[in-house]
C-alpha cells in the first residue's frame, strides 16, 4: 500500500511539474522526461516486473495527455522500466557517474524507440523543439541521477 501511494505521488509530482514547466519554462519540457524518471526510480527500487508495469501505466498516462498514437510512449516506457529493473540488479549503481551513465543509456534507448515508432512505423512527424529534444536523454539523466542520488535510490540494492 505504501509503495502504491509513493508511485501515485511520483506520478502526481510528474504531472504537476510538467504542467508548471510548460507554463513558465516551455522549452525545458523538451529537455526533461519526467515520467521516465518516475519509472526508472521505482524500477531501480523494486524489480523489472514492477518497472515494466509502471512503465506501461506511465506511458499510457502520457499518451492520454498528449495528441498522438496512443500506446507509443506506453510501449517505449515498458521496455525502459523492464531494463531499468533488470539491469540495476546486475550492476553497482552507487557512484554518481555510473548512475548517470545507466540512466543516460536507458533514456537513449527509450528515445530511439519512441522516435522510431512515431516516425517510421506510424509516419508521425516528431517535434524536435529546434533540436532541444536530442539533448533530452543527457539532461534528464543528469537531473535524474542528481535526484536519485539525493533520495538514495540505489542504497537498497547494494
Amino acid at each position, binding site marked *: 500500500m505504501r509503495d502504491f501511494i509513493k508511485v501515485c505521488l511520483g506520478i*502526481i509530482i510528474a*504531472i*504537476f511539474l*510538467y*504542467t*508548471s514547466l*510548460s*507554463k513558465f519554462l*516551455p522549452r525545458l*519540457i523538451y529537455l526533461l522526461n519526467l*515520467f521516465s524518471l518516475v519509472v526508472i526510480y521505482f524500477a531501480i527500487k523494486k*524489480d*523489472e*516486473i514492477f518497472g*515494466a*508495469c509502471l512503465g*506501461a501505466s506511465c506511458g*499510457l*498516462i*502520457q*499518451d*492520454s*495527455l*498528449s*495528441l*498522438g*498514437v*496512443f*500506446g*507509443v*510512449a*506506453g*510501449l517505449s516506457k*515498458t*521496455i525502459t522500466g*523492464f531494463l531499468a529493473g*533488470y539491469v540495476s540488479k546486475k550492476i553497482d549503481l552507487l557512484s554518481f557517474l555510473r548512475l548517470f551513465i545507466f540512466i543516460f543509456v536507458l533514456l537513449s534507448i527509450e528515445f530511439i524507440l519512441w522516435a522510431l515508432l512515431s516516425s517510421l512505423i*506510424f509516419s508521425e*512527424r*516528431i*517535434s*524536435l*523543439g*529546434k533540436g532541444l529534444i536530442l539533448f533530452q536523454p543527457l539532461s534528464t539523466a543528469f537531473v535524474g541521477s542528481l535526484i536519485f542520488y539525493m533520495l538514495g535510490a540505489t542504497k537498497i540494492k547494494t
Partner: protein
Amino acid sequence: MTLFFKEKKSLIILIALILAQFILISIQLPGGSERNYFEKAVFSIFSPIQHGIVSFFRSIGNLWKNYFALRHVQSQNQEMKEQIFFLRQENNLLQNALQKFRTEKEIQDGLLEVHKNILLAEIIGLDVSNFFKSAIINRGSIHGIRKDMVVLDEKGNLVGRVISPISLREARIQLITDNESGVGVFSQLKGVSGVLAGDGNGMCSFKYVLATNKDIREGEGVLTSGREGIFPSGIKVGKIVSIAKDTSLFKEIKVEPYFDIRRLERVAVIMKEPTEIF
C-alpha cells in the same frame, strides 16, 4: 512447465505487456484520428487529476497574486474604463454597419445569442509530448462541449478546435500549430486562399499558394475562410512572417499565429457556429 514459467515470469510479463500495447496501437489504425474507448477511459481518469492539481496550485498562486493585484487595482480600473470606452465605440460602429443589412432587433437578438453561446474555459494542461499540439480545457460534456467547437483566445484570435476525447469536465483541443491540423484560410489584403497547417514548433505554413502568385506579402494578416466546414470565416489567425520560393509548384509561406501558447490561460469556446447565431 511450472518451473519454466517461474524462471521466465518477468520475460513473459514483458512480452504480454508489449503485445497488449501493440494490440492497442493496431486497434487505432482503422479508426484513424478517432480515439478508442481505452484512451477515452484513461483520459477521463487522469484529466480530472490534472485538473485538480492545476486548480489547487492555481488557487494558491491566485491568493498571492490577488494580494499584489489589490495594490494596482485603481490604476487597472482606470485602464479598463478606457478600454471599455473604446470597445463601446467599436461596438456601436459595428452595430451601425450591421444595420445596413439587418434590423436593430435582429442585431440585438443576435448579439444576445453570441453572448449566450460563448463559454469561458481555462487551460489546465498542455500536450505532454509537444505543447504546440494540443491542450486540455476545464470544460467538458457536462458544460455542453462537443467535438469540432471552435476555440478562440482572449482577443478573439483562433486557437484551435475541440477534439475527442471529451470527458465530463475536461476536453482536449487541437491547436492550429499541430502538424496534423488544417484550416482553410485567406490573406487579408488580396484574398489569396490556401490551407494553414501547423509545423509542430509553434509556427504554421500557408500551403498551396502557387509560386507564380504575386498577390501575397510579408506582414499581411491571415483569416479563416470557413471552407473546411469547421471554422467560421473571418476569424483572425496570424501574420505572414516569411515567403520563400520552394522547389515545388508552391510557395513556402510561414505564418506566426496571433495566439501565444505561453500566455494562453483563458479561452472562449464558441458553442454554436456564428452562422447559426446570426
